């Protein structure tokens, strides 16, 4: 079905309910982490390494401490507990110890009355560096055992995940068509607009309260507390307003630093990064080099894929292991491939650390395998959509990991839908706005060619590879002012995706009440897991539903007690208990009689298994989601400038829970994919970032984002709550290769590297 405006205004599940935090957001009163204030607070700043690799020969903080208004200057020696932290490997020092491994690594902290004072003092910390040659060749780090190590004796390979399926020797003999390609993906930044920030407030119990913008409160808490030398319970986190996340807030940034300063000074400490510091303050999307060889029959059926994927994790592991797992397990795309030899590596280098970003390992692979599918199509003389349809997975298909897709996967039909979208009008030349370059007035039609490209992507939803993931929800039903009202409390991070809207929609629907409040997210309730992996509708949605069901059960029991009869099949509607025959038997207010019913539930998805370390076999994923893009572009082939004329997307979301918010996710994912295709890259040379600003790291403006068509399918996943399928990431995968395919179509250029730059098109 398509999204109908008719469902706007409603507030139940499936309606385009409006954001409960929307009024505060449109007036600017919504408090983001950078807006927090405490009367007696001091400001923290971070001294960072200018070098990507150096030995620290000494740190002298005496001059900095002497600056009037300075309250504390801290180095690694002042970290009272564990000196290292990390999401998967505790390999990252809270503050550098004896050496630095990337440009921008935190070395020391200052707290002062005023940010300007703190910065002045920071500039007076003397750090002696013995500068070393940075190790920046990811491929050598992966494959050359003689390459020097980034971390002492530890291997540079954070993870190597092979996939082995079938008989490659035989496959090579029978393949009639072979296409090869080498691809490169630049380092993309999440570039959320609200930089890292938070406020740490020392507590009377010796602990600390931290208000911070993050994606997962509890995993922050688990990493912070040991470094502070505190029991977990004494580090309490509350979610502050999050100005975008996209993966960049999975890792810690200023959290431990602010807490350390707060505990040392006894004062609330605020840390806010500026834009430049933000580029050094969080992990980025792994840049990748990918070599692919596809073998197929002459009629375009894939026989084998032989691939090598090298992901540059930079100085610290962050979530590199899981990114490698995704790149490997999803590395051949949503296609049936009988023979696979694939090796995915994630490595340490002295480049900026990389970790989570929307699409997480699947994005890099998708650019390569979709570029390859176009090559297969060309080699076989087939239409690019046709070759994809011939190889598309469906329900019951076996992936390269051996996992069978046990949910609807109508990929072939989705491809047909994408092909059936009407074509946008031909290139106009009357108005420069319609042309590449726009009002920069670079063409009046000269050199402009139209191109069309298609791509599909497959993304795992939820955490994979045996991770015991759960989300917790507490739901309370009581009467407020005579009306039944529900309070939903979780630790789940609203990062803009509309999770608070959805939580309220679920409670409203399950409990049949209008008035629902979503409490601020904090660690006062169990973990909700991360706002990552497109998992929160599934996991926290599932938890809120489970808690609501438990509350409902108790309320019906209370009704049964009150009425003195059993009410099999009863439900809650419109503030009433409704018997199976549809008749209201009591109002909630009567049944509750001033009491509150509160239940807490943990929701778990079905178990997954690890990938075999040698063959990559295993049922590693919870759920699969698919998106198909068609991109139409106009390219000035002489100047290499691209205008994306239209993006059209077909996505299966299992069930639409909020049409308006869902479309927003598809727009946003597509926009970020467009950025990676055409403009976004952190340029790193010899480990040094050359463009840490919004002047030279370009993200799409409203003029770069074309009008979008969407077609949304609802083929329910029987294993998921409400049949839903995570939706935020899949569009990020397929929009990039679709746009690049369209540019290739217009230009005939090979375009093996993203972002595609004008010189690749015009001088390539």
């Amino acid at each position: 079905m398509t999204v109908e405006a008719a469902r706007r205004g409603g507030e139940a599940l499936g309606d385009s309910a409006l954001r409960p935090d929307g009024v505060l957001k449109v007036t600017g009163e919504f408090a983001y982490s950078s807006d927090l204030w405490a009367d007696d607070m001091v400001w923290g700043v971070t001294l960072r390494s200018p070098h990507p690799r150096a030995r620290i020969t000494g740190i002298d903080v005496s001059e900095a401490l002497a600056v009037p208004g300075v309250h504390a200057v801290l180095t690694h020696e002042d970290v009272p507990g564990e000196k290292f932290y990390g999401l998967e490997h505790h390999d990252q020092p809270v503050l550098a110890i004896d050496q630095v491994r990337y440009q921008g690594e935190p070395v020391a902290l200052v707290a002062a009355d005023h940010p300007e004072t703190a910065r002045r003092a920071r500039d007076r910390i003397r750090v002696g560096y013995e500068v070393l040659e940075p190790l920046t060749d990811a491929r050598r780090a992966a494959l050359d055992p003689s390459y020097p190590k980034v971390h002492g004796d530890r291997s540079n390979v954070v993870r190597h995940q092979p996939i082995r399926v079938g008989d490659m020797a035989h496959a090579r003999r029978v393949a009639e068509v072979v296409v090869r390609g080498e691809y490169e993906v630049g380092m993309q930044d999440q570039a959320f607009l609200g930089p890292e920030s938070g406020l740490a407030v020392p507590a009377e119990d010796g602990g600390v309260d931290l208000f911070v913008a993050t994606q997962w409160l509890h995993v922050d808490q688990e990493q912070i507390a040991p470094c502070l030398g505190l029991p977990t319970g004494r580090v309490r986190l509350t979610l502050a307003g999050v100005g975008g996340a996209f993966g960049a807030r999975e890792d810690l940034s200023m959290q431990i630093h602010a807490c350390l300063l707060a505990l040392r000074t006894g004062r609330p400490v605020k840390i806010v990064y500026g834009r430049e510091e933000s580029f050094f303050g969080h992990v980025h999307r792994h840049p990748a080099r990918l070599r692919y060889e596809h073998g197929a029959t002459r009629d375009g059926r894939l026989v084998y894929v032989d691939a090598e994927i090298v992901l540059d994790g930079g100085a610290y592991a962050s979530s590199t292991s899981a990114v490698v797992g995704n790149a490997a397990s999803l590395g051949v795309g949503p296609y049936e491939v009988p023979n696979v030899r694939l090796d995915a590596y994630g490595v340490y280098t002295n480049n900026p650390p990389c970790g989570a970003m929307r699409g997480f390992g699947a994005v890099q692979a998708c650019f390569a395998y979709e570029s390859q599918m176009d090559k297969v199509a060309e080699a076989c003389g087939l239409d690019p959509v046709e070759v994809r349809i011939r190889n598309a997975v469906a329900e019951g298909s076996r992936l390269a990991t051996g996992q069978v897709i046990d949910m609807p996967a109508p990929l072939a039909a989705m491809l047909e839908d994408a092909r059936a979208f009407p074509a946008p009008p031909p290139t106009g030349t009357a108005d420069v706005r319609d042309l590449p370059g726009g009002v920069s007035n670079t063409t009046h039609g000269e050199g402009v060619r139209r191109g069309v490209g298609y791509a599909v992507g497959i993304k795992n939803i939820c955490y994979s590879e045996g991770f015991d993931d759960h989300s917790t929800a507490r739901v309370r039903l009581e009467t407020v002012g005579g009306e039944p009202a529900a309070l939903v409390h979780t630790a789940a991070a609203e990062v803009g995706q509309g999770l608070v809207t959805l939580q309220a929609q679920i409670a409203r629907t399950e409990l049949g009440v209008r008035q629902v409040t979503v409490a601020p997210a904090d660690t006062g309730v169990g973990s909700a897991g991360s706002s990552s992996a497109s998992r929160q509708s599934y996991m926290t949605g599932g938890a809120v539903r489970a808690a609501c069901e438990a509350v409902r059960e108790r309320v019906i029991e209370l009704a049964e007690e009150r009425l003195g009869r059993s009410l099999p099949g009863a439900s809650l509607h419109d503030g009433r208990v409704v018997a199976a025959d549809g008749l209201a038997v009591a109002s909630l207010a009567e049944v509750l009689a001033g009491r509150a019913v509160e239940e807490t539930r943990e929701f778990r998805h079905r178990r997954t298994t690890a990938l075999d370390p040698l063959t990559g076999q295993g049922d590693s994923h919870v759920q699969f989601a698919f998106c198909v893009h068609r991109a139409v572009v106009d390219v000035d082939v002489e100047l290499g400038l691209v205008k994306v004329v239209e993006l059209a997307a077909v996505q299966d979301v299992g069930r639409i829970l909020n049409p308006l918010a869902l479309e927003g996710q598809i727009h946003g994912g597509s926009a970020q994919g467009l950025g990676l295709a055409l403009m976004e890259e952190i340029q790193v040379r010899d480990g040094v970032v050359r463009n840490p600003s919004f002047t030279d790291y370009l993200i799409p403006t409203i003029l770069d984002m074309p009008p979008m068509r969407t077609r949304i399918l609802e083929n329910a996943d029987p294993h998921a709550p409400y049949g839903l399928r995570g939706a935020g990431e899949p569009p990020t995968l397929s929009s990039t290769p679709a746009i690049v395919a369209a540019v290739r179509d217009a230009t005939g250029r090979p375009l093996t590297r993203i972002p595609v730059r004008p010189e690749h098109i015009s001088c390539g």
Partner: protein
Amino acid sequence: MDASIRLRVDGQWRTLDVDTRTTLLDALRERLGVTSPKKGCDHGQCGSCTVLLDGRRAVTCLALAVAHDGAEIVTAEGLADGEDLHPVQRAFLEQDGLQCGYCTPGQVCSAVGMLEEVKAGWPSQVTEDLAGPPELDDEEIRERMSGNLCRCGAYPNIVAAIRQGAR
């Protein structure tokens, strides 16, 4: 070095001492506690700190506080009349022209300022026919809103919101 200035912010006169290096954005956020304008890039490349400065949209990160002694500033917060949202704000809410919302106060101020510019007959970058009043189609909205980044990519809904707000 400090200077004393007066600003009329969202209808209220405020007096404050500022270092001469202070931007208008920092003066609003850190000195006056007016946090509706957001800091996103520190150099005029994102538009999150847009306010109406003496009636025109401007980025406050590139305005020096001391240079605006006596200025009239309207932020997104001041556009709403208590509980009553400005029509542009209501449109952003109803069309879901936001996700994380960080750029939203700047988008809203920019949109309101832009609609005033259109009313005053200002040509945009792209107005071809300089004689007639500009027609505010989607393309024109995009052109005129190109100074406000939205990383969540809510652009299609922002266009829809401004279309609604302009009515």
